[in-house]
């Protein structure tokens, strides 16, 4: 009887030990799952943050364009209908300089007004923004020593664009005319 009791006690002990070991294994497994889930969550969160940042702040994809460079060269050489007091027609390049010094044409029009009007008119005719055209819009900025002189834009500004600039020097001032065509 005593022996039977001892055997029973030993069985209970073994059973308890086995149960304890099983519980420990299960706990360790649970910990591993939690750790693994954490890793996946961290990777997922990092990826989501990275993707959302790249979608929210899209880098502008501007291609340096020879076509735009040629356009700006031709545009600056274009003769305007603004006449000087010595009966000479100004080119758009000269008109940009006159605009900075707030001069007027022979007929009383402001050089800046003629400059902006000409830029807009020629750009609208040169860059087809109609249906079926890949060009969605454009922007033109004239700056003097980094400060905006005149700026015009038309159509939609998109992520992809091709652009160029022309730099001119007059009276120790740096004039820059920049053009960007969005598509």
């Amino acid at each position, binding site marked *: 009887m005593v022996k039977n009791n001892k055997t029973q006690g030993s069985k209970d002990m073994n059973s308890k030990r086995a149960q304890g070991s099983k519980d420990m294994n299960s706990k360790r497994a649970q910990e591993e799952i939690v750790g*693994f889930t954490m890793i996946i969550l961290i*990777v997922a969160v990092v990826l989501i943050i990275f993707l959302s940042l790249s979608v929210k702040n899209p880098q502008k994809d501007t291609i340096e*364009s020879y*076509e735009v460079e040629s356009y700006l060269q*031709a545009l600056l050489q274009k003769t305007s209908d603004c006449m000087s007091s010595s009966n*000479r027609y100004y080119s758009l390049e000269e008109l940009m300089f006159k605009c900075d010094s707030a001069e007027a044409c022979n007929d009383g029009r402001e050089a800046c007004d003629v400059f902006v009007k000409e830029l807009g008119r020629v750009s609208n*005719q*040169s860059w087809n923004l109609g249906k079926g055209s890949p060009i969605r819009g454009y922007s033109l900025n004239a700056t003097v020593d980094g400060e905006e002189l005149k700026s015009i834009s038309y159509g939609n500004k998109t992520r992809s664009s091709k652009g160029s600039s022309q730099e001119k020097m007059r009276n120790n001032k740096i004039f820059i005319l920049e053009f960007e065509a969005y598509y």
Partner: protein
Amino acid sequence: MNSKAQLKIQQMAFMLIAITIFFAIAGMFALTMSSSNNKKDAEFIREEHAMTLISKLANSPEFSCGEVFGGGQSNCIDSDKAIILAQKAIKYKTFWGVEDIEIKIINSDAEKLCNLQNYPDCNTINILNNETEGYPVSNFVSLCRKESFGGENYDKCEVARITVVTKGTW
């Protein structure tokens, strides 16, 4: 023991799936970046070819403004030279190695082909027209001529687009 092994297998399966997804996303991102760069390069090379061909033509002595309009102007075409060349196009049929050359002044007027009778009240100078199929390339140029106002001569420059059709591919 069996349950632990199952758990381990499950864990490994999850890990493999996660790694696969991660590399797939990374690969897609790398592909997008490289295709974007290829697109940029292709556009750049295409423009460079077009520019070289057109610059070669526009700056050739037969077309260029030279020193007549102040000098130092690149991609400037003397329209007086161009209109004369258009009359003698037959002699220059194979000279430039291109099929068509057309210069169109950019304005809102309807296309009006230039000849010696209506020049300069026109907007399109057709220099070569071999009427063969090819690959058109175009670029902006400055088209200049001498005008007079009140007995005084002045330079009249306009923005124009020169289109050249070549037989070869890029």
